[in-house]
């Protein structure tokens, strides 16, 4: 099992959800975050001067998926979150060693 963390534009959530649903991926957790990438946000001009608006609002999507689904999910998020402009976001995959379901108490994965 892997954990996918994707940081996307707020306004793309709808598209991403739809695209994932179509592929059968429903479960997810979403968090409001503030972020900046290498570009350090957006530079606005005013009267000769300029200010940098870093730390723009983004959404973080977290999904725990089976190893074999990682690529599909990554691909799907990438494609549906894209606008082609700076600030579209990133996706990272982290390993998961165990998981459990609260309602049933089932646990799966290796035990230490």
């Amino acid at each position, binding site marked *: 099992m892997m954990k996918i963390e994707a940081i996307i534009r707020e306004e793309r959530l*709808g598209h991403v959800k739809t695209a994932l649903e179509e592929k059968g991926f429903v479960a997810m957790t979403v968090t409001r975050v503030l972020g900046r990438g290498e570009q350090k946000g*957006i530079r*606005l001009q005013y009267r000769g001067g300029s200010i940098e608006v870093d730390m723009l609002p983004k959404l973080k999507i977290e999904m725990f998926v089976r190893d074999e689904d990682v690529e599909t999910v990554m691909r799907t998020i990438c494609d549906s979150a894209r606008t082609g402009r700076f600030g579209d976001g990133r996706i990272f995959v982290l390993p998961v060693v165990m998981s459990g379901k609260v309602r049933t108490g089932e646990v799966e994965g290796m035990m230490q």
Partner: protein
Amino acid sequence: MAIDAGDTAWIMISAALVMLMTPGVGLFYGGLVRSKSVISMISLSILAISLASIQWVLVGYSLAFGSDILGIIGGLDFILMRNVGMSEGPLAGTVPHLAYMMFQLVFAAVTLAILTSAVAERIKLSSFIVLSLLWTTVVYDPLAHWVWAGGWLAGLGALDFAGGTVVHISSGFSALAIALVIGKRAGFDTYVLEPHNIPMAMIGAALLWFGWFGFNAGSALTAGGLAASAFVVTNTSAAAGAIAWLLGSWVRGKPSALGMVSGAIAGLVAITPAAGYVDTISALLIGAFAGLLCYSALLFRVGVGLDESLDAWAVHGVGGLWGALATGIFANPAVNSYAGLIHGNPGQFTAQIVAALASVAYAFVMSYVLARLVDATLGLRVTEDEEYVGLDIAVHGEKAYA
């Protein structure tokens, strides 16, 4: 006539109530935009009252209420507040001229504030300032003159108790024109631009309902039976509008709270021109129909993909139009000596149609021209990046919520 303390107290408190409507509009609109533009949205209203206040005492009042020139515009007799003093004015014989001037000032202010619906989340501040000053001078002042100060519409016998044409038709149809010029917000067609704070919008609506008592009952200009009647029909129409829109949205899906308060505003708008002429039961009908009509106008507006963002057109424009006509339908001579269609006077109804259409046309055309003018010279819109970041940071350098 001499100055009466009761009437003066009433017109002053009415002016204060109407003043509160301007930030009321700001909150109503501010709650409906995204959190990245709420400061901007409220600021446009505060700016509207600030600009209108200054324009009005310098020239606006004189253009609107100065001695009539050919039925078109007022003369310069009251410019810079000359001849506007503590004794009675020409149009209200029991209150100080200054109080009457002030009461009219807050109408000009709130009208400008309503207009900001059209430019939400995307206008350049400097262009807003220029457009506002132009608009209030070129559109509002003449319209006020035509209807309330011996202008040609008054001459036709058209009735507008508290501003159905001058305030609501004019701001609503102007908003439509300006929205066409400035264009849709980025993302309008691709994702939902959700209201960020509905309780804030509801507070705004509540302040509007409250302030509207000054708007309509204050327009009686005296504290007597006519004011009381206007007060009652105002409240009745608001309530009917609220219930009607609530039920309307319920039929289509879920009973919308935002719909309910929008319906109250629709009811208030529609009763505005009629407030001094109709009875309570008519007000019930006027308000209920306004709720349904403005709701339909909103659905239509959304349907055709027009981003007149906060529905000044659907609520104030369409509601004001209906109110102007309704005055011609329901005017009851038992209330105020004027009879409408159902009391056997089709002439009144015709006069209302003419006045309403003239206002629609004048407001729409002039606003379209002014907006194009400002767009061609200063540019109406902020840049794409500024719009994306949100006007609060991009324009004001401020963040609403830490």
